[in-house]
């Protein structure tokens, strides 16, 4: 499946990926409204860690055998058989955050429902990748099996 990979050598720590992720997951889909005025404020699924010297944007790996899916106590977290996307069923999630406690990559954020990357499900290219000014995020299916 196509996944997002981060290249720390190219990341500028500009955090535009976070801005566009928030916008893509907002109600208004408007960059200004989403980032300044909307309540509840949309949360970015991607997070830039590091500093101006060295940084990278971290995103869900959509693992082949996802621990978060196995650990989910309500069946809300599933991996789509066709697309491979790991996503949260918002109706079923109770926000217990067991998924967060088992994700070895630190890619799930607290919320009810739990907040995580859905690869912008119906889009051809995720918003963070599309808007990264320095190509520090790559969307490709070159990666094979993933633990």
């Amino acid at each position, binding site marked *: 499946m196509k996944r997002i*990979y981060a290249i720390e050598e190219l990341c500028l720590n500009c955090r535009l990926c976070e801005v566009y992720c928030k916008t893509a997951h907002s109600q208004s889909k408007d960059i200004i409204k989403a980032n300044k005025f909307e309540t509840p404020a949309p949360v970015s699924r991607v997070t830039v860690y590091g500093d101006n010297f060295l940084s990278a944007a971290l995103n869900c790996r959509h693992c082949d055998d996802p621990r978060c899916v196995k650990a989910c*106590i309500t069946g809300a977290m599933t991996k789509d058989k066709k697309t491979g996307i790991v996503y949260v069923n918002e109706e079923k999630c109770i926000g217990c955050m067991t998924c*967060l406690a088992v994700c070895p990559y630190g890619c799930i954020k607290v919320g009810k429902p739990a907040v995580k990357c859905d690869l912008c499900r119906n889009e051809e290219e995720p918003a963070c990748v599309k808007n990264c000014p320095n190509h520090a995020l790559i969307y490709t299916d070159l990666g094979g099996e993933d633990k």
Partner: protein
Amino acid sequence: MKYIIIGASAAGLACAEQIRKEDKDGEITVFTKENYLPYSRPSISYYLKGVVKESSMYLRKSSYYDAACIKIITGAEIKSIDRKAKTIKAGRKSYSYDKLCLCTGSKPFVPPMKNVSGKINALTFLDLESTKQIKATADKNTRAVVIGAGLIGMKAAEGLSKVCRSVDVVELAPRVLPSILDEKSAKSVKKYLEEQGHIRFHLEQTVTEAKSKGNRITSVILKSGKDLPCDLLILAVGVRPETELAEKAGIEVNRGIITDPATMQTSDKNIYAAGDCAVSVDMLDGSKRVIALWPNAVNQGTVAGSRMAGGGLTIKGSYSVNAIDFYGLRICTCGLINAVGGKYSDKIIRSGDSYKRLIFESGRLVGYVLINSSDNAGIYTSLIESKEELSTLTGDICETPDPFIFPKDERNTRMKGELDL
């Protein structure tokens, strides 16, 4: 091949699904004594609170089982196993198996109290049926008393505090959530619960007897002599592994069904056990005990299923990891949180309403308690599981962990897999 699974919660369902993955034609039958298709048992407190509908509690759509050719028989309590004939008995009917998995879970432990047993308003809080009874009994005039301030008791108390007039919690230990909190953190959690839920605690207390009118309890008497008015009594002292069926069949049991720690096979080579009824070996200290937590149950069920179908999955290591919330207060725990002895050390980081306690053993992380500081907790969990030497890390693990605590190579593997981009 004929597979039978007894119990249809986390372990049982994981077992059935793994068998189906590895054996497309085998006949899989799952028996549950409950009258429901597999549902999320931990969600019962959310159902009690009214934030989750019954329909969202089911782990899979009902059409899923037909499509996967997994037969679920509800309302079927298994009475006995005949290991020689390789059959089980449900009611008058016998069913034969080639491989059997026991996922019988746990049963509530009720300490002896005078005049409690058989009273219609003394209930346990463990499954959907009992929760429905509690829901039907509790209203805004109800004065509820919960015995036990562990995870189940406190979840019951939280749920009841949203619907009842008052909630009193009676606990034998000197602190709330004794299994996951140390003294200091328990104190602040207790204060929070008192403020948020108006829960009244009676610590280092037990209920000695109940007063009743007809078959209803009207009040309970504590060890101190205090008389607490009570319209609804919740018995949540603790649970014990449900091993009766295994014991009767002569399978080795010692406070839980004994299994091979790698394959989940019991002392009978055709019978496996997984989940809260089975003994695990904690990879962090080698202790043998039941780790009654969801991720562990799924892991064991999956491995048992694979082995039953002739596959080769193996338990890589069991440890406890748990996340829970009370009125928005988030508690994440993992590993050896109650470790005592000179070889363990810990570090506590407090700021505002957050609390973080990391437990170390010879340069490795072996446990954590995170209160309102659970961000990226899974990175800690992975450090615990991989027994990573902390001296190899490049960042301070007392801060919120992120990929930059790992040296470049490992960090890149984590971000890019094996790709050369």
